[in-house]
């Protein structure tokens, strides 16, 4: 209790944008997403605008944009005409930028930007770092709301669902459920009132894709939700966003206000009979609220505890009404699919995983930040070509995907393509898209213990196997890490993990043993080193030597009777 991260107050600044009256010769795009904002990015925008004015650069545009992707090197400023990216810019030292802006020739073409950018394919994040997240005109200028207008003018809801079905889009929030199938269930469910909910709870530690999308291109989510609402006959929508993301919340609220004013939300959208409005609801620090039934309970003002499914929310959701729940990134793909066509989208990808996926690269990797790649790209390309490899050139040990329900994939499988299916085959999980890279300074038993600690801390406490079992798993892992476990404890661990997986009520408990299964599968030798040799190969765990080697609770306790 009483963890109170981030500032509860929204961080909002007035735009300080220099807009040339005539032709724009050069522009400076200043990243004002959370990561760069925390490094005084807004001061850069303000100072740069002022200094351009002072230097008489009336044909230069200074604009605030969302995430430029390479968060590790922030604060970032880009000159899109030349493709130059300025890293670690200091608000007090903008001379270099001014010089560069002065020297841009009219009609310059951007030069190639290196593999971090060149190997990416941007669909959900196509506007990221391009549009001002608080400007509706800017969004419309880049094709925004074209899709919604076309849908409302020319299409039936069945046709919209058909397009989404043919695109092969699957949910980006975790399990990869076919989006069109869910939409059809909601559309066909009985009930006059239906709801659309955007799941922006993004609780996986080490994942920040949804945050960047919301901060960089909020209108896109509103457009995607409106299209979905049209397709499933819903009139009201909610965005359930973590309270830890004050900037995303502030920008969403701004976007909703601007969209309402422009007639893209509310009654009679784009002068049709279609009516749809959206409200933001704040989470309050509970990972389990990302689970859809818990999320619904939370929107209803209750404790965020999941309930057994069926009935699925698509049939009985918010206030008992049919409810469509999709992830932020799922909605972000929708406008592009309707604008560019199902065939185009379906042409990208691998097997049953179509389109692109946004990943948040973090951990012991050089280019931490946000990337979007076609499904089917190999882990090696993502981590080495785009991610720039491991910090200090250390050896790669594993990449963790799928958050607390995911697993750790070792070096042997770096050449595996990334898709929903391959990750499951490797004992991991797509999850929401966090990729945490680990080198030889990480102990895999310690990592398993870390995730178990997370799960037991975030367990809602409703069902017995998760409430009690995750703690017992953690106790066993802790015993192993401290060098006090026996081989019998290892058997116990595997047996208990199976029980928790099979018996738990919701995905949190069912997925909690996954980090254990995957580390046991690939790094059993590390477990054995702790248990048999009483040593931690990575030198992370503090091995506690007992006076005599007797394991702590070797004797079974009697059932009280």
């Amino acid at each position, binding site marked *: 209790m*009483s963890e*109170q*991260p981030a500032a509860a107050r929204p961080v909002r600044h007035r735009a300080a944008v220099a807009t040339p009256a005539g032709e724009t010769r050069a522009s400076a795009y200043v990243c004002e997403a959370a990561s760069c904002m925390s490094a005084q990015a807004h001061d850069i925008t303000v100072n740069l605008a002022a200094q351009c004015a002072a230097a008489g650069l009336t044909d230069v545009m200074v604009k605030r944009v969302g995430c430029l992707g390479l968060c590790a090197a922030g604060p970032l400023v880009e000159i899109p005409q030349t493709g130059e990216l300025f890293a670690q810019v200091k608000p007090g030292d903008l001379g270099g930028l001014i010089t560069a802006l002065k020297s841009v020739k009219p009609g310059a073409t951007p030069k190639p930007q290196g593999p971090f950018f060149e190997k990416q394919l941007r669909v959900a994040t196509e506007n990221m770092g391009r549009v001002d997240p608080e400007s509706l005109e800017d969004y419309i200028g880049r094709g925004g709301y074209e899709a919604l207008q076309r849908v409302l003018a020319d299409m039936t809801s069945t046709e919209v669902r058909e397009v989404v079905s043919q695109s092969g889009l699957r949910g980006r929030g975790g399990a990869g459920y076919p989006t069109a199938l869910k939409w059809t269930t909601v559309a066909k469910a009985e009930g006059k009132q239906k709801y659309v909910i955007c799941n922006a709870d993004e609780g996986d530690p*080490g994942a920040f894709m949804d945050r960047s999308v919301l901060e960089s291109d909020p209108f896109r989510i509103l457009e995607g939700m409106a299209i979905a609402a049209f397709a499933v006959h819903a009139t009201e929508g909610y965005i359930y966003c973590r309270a*830890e993301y004050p900037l995303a919340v502030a920008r969403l609220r701004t976007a909703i206000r601007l969209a309402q004013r422009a007639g893209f939300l509310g009654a009679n959208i784009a002068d049709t009979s279609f009516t749809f409005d959206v409200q933001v609801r704040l989470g*309050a620090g509970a990972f389990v609220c990302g689970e859809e039934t818990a999320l619904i309970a939370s929107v209803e*003002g209750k404790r*965020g505890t999941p309930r057994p499914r069926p009935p699925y929310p698509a049939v009985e959701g918010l206030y008992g009404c049919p409810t469509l729940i999709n992830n932020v990134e799922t909605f972000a793909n929708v406008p592009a699919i309707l604008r560019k066509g199902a065939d185009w989208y379906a042409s990208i990808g691998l097997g049953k995983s179509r389109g692109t996926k946004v990943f948040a690269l973090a951990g012991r990797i050089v280019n931490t930040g946000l990337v979007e790649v076609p499904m089917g790209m190999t882990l090696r390309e993502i981590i080495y070509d785009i991610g720039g490899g491991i910090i200090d050139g250390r050896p790669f040990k594993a990449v963790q995907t799928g958050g607390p329900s995911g697993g750790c994939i070792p070096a042997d499988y770096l050449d595996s393509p990334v898709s929903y299916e391959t990750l499951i085959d490797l004992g991991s999980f797509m999850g929401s898209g966090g990729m945490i890279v680990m080198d030889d300074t990480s102990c895999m038993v310690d990592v398993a213990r870390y995730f178990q600690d997370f799960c037991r801390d975030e367990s809602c406490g409703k069902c017995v196997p998760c409430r009690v079992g995750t703690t017992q798993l953690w106790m066993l892992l802790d015993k192993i890490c401290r060098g006090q476990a026996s081989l019998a404890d290892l058997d116990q661990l595997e047996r208990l993990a199976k029980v928790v997986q099979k018996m738990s009520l919701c995905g949190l408990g069912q997925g909690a043993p996954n980090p254990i299964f995957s580390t046991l599968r690939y790094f059993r030798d590390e477990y054995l080193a702790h248990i048999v040799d009483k040593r931690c190969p990575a030198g992370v765990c503090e091995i506690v030597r007992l006076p005599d080697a007797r394991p702590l609770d070797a004797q079974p306790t009697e059932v009280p009777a």
Partner: protein
Amino acid sequence: MPVLHAKPAPPSDDKRWKIVETRMRRMGDRPYALIEALHAAQEAFGYLDESALNYVGDTLGVPHSRVYGVATFYSYFTLKPQGEHTCVVCTGTACYINGAKEILAGIERGLGVKPKQTTPDGKLSILTARCLGACSLAPAVIVDGAVMGKIGAAELVAQLEAM
């Protein structure tokens, strides 16, 4: 559906109750406004005391035991006043493997406080969070609302001591 219970008066004439009241009224004083109302009260007063919980529960017609159940379920809500300054240490995965453990250990060594504790002089509260979404700056902390990234334990402790 009309609201059948009488609306209670705010616990005091503190102007901040107006904000809470307005937020609840906008949602029709219905039970589903509970979490929004708690957010409003915590934003206004910094924490949720019993009078706030009672007031919100009575206005929305939610049993007291349920208000308490909700307020204690979510880690964002706090029922105790916090220190003058707060330092939130991220213990998310990216920060964990980049040294969050050392930061917490450093704070405990240097300042003698553990997570969820406040220094005896009431100056500083240490909190933890699972991922602030600033993983590219790992290890990340938030000191009084400002994110600081790639920070070492010693450097942070020195800063906190100076406050």
